[in-house]
C-alpha cells in the first residue's frame, strides 16, 4: 500500500469521523465515583440467588443427584 493510498483513506476517515478535539468534562464525576466506591464489591442479580437456592434445595432433598450436578458443572 502506497503512502498516497494511506493518506486518501485517512482523509476519508477524517471527513466521516472528525477528530475529537479537547472535549471538556461537563460535570464533576466525583459523586458518581463515591457512589461506586460505596457499592458492595460483588453484586449478584436476584435470579442468581434464586438459582443457587433452588440448587441447594434440590441437593438437600435429593442428595443422590450430587454426582449428576457435578457432572453437568
Amino acid at each position: 500500500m502506497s503512502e498516497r493510498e494511506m493518506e486518501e483513506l485517512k482523509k476519508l476517515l477524517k471527513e466521516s469521523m472528525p477528530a475529537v478535539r479537547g472535549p471538556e468534562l461537563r460535570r464533576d464525576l466525583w459523586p458518581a465515583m463515591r457512589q461506586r466506591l460505596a457499592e458492595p464489591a460483588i453484586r449478584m442479580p436476584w435470579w442468581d440467588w434464586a438459582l443457587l437456592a433452588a440448587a441447594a434445595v434440590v441437593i438437600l432433598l435429593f442428595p443422590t443427584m450430587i454426582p449428576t450436578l457435578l457432572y453437568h458443572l
Partner: protein
Amino acid sequence: MEVLERFAAGDPEAFECLFRQHQGEVYRWIIRIVRNSATAEDLTVETFWRMHRARARFDARKGNFCGWMRRIATNTALDHLRRSRREVELPEEMPDTRKPISAEQNEMRQAIFHAIDRLSPTVRATVLLALVEEEPYENIAKALGISTTAVKLRVFRGVRVLRKELSKAGVRP
C-alpha cells in the same frame, strides 16, 4: 508522605485528590476511543474504580502514575468495545456532524462505520487514534502496552481491512 504513596497505601483523601486532578485527562483519552461522552464518563469512573482496586500494585517510588493510569483507561475502553460491538457512535460535541449532509455523503459515512465495525476492538482503537486523532505512535504504544512496531502493524492491518470492506461497499479510497 507524597500523595501517590498515600494513594498506594489506601488513603481515601489521596485517591480523591488524584481523581479530581486527573478525571478530565482520563475522560479526554477515553472519549477518543469510544467517541461518546456519556459512555466516556461511565468509563472514567470505571477506570478509577480499577485503579482503586489495583492501588496496592502501584509502585509509587517508580512514579509513572500517568502512564499506569492511561494503560488502565485504555484497557477499560477496550473492554467496553469488546462488550458492545456495535456501530461507531459519532461524538455529540462535533459541530460539523450536525450539518446537513447529502444522501451520498451519508451512504459513504455508513459504509465507513460498517467497515470500522469489522475491525477488532484493539485494531479499531489503534486505527482511530493513529489516523483520525493523529496521536503519535509512541503514545499509542505506551497506552496499549505494545511496541511502536506493533502499533504500525496494527494500523497497517486495519487499513487493509478497511480498504477491503470499503471496496466491497463500492467506495474507492
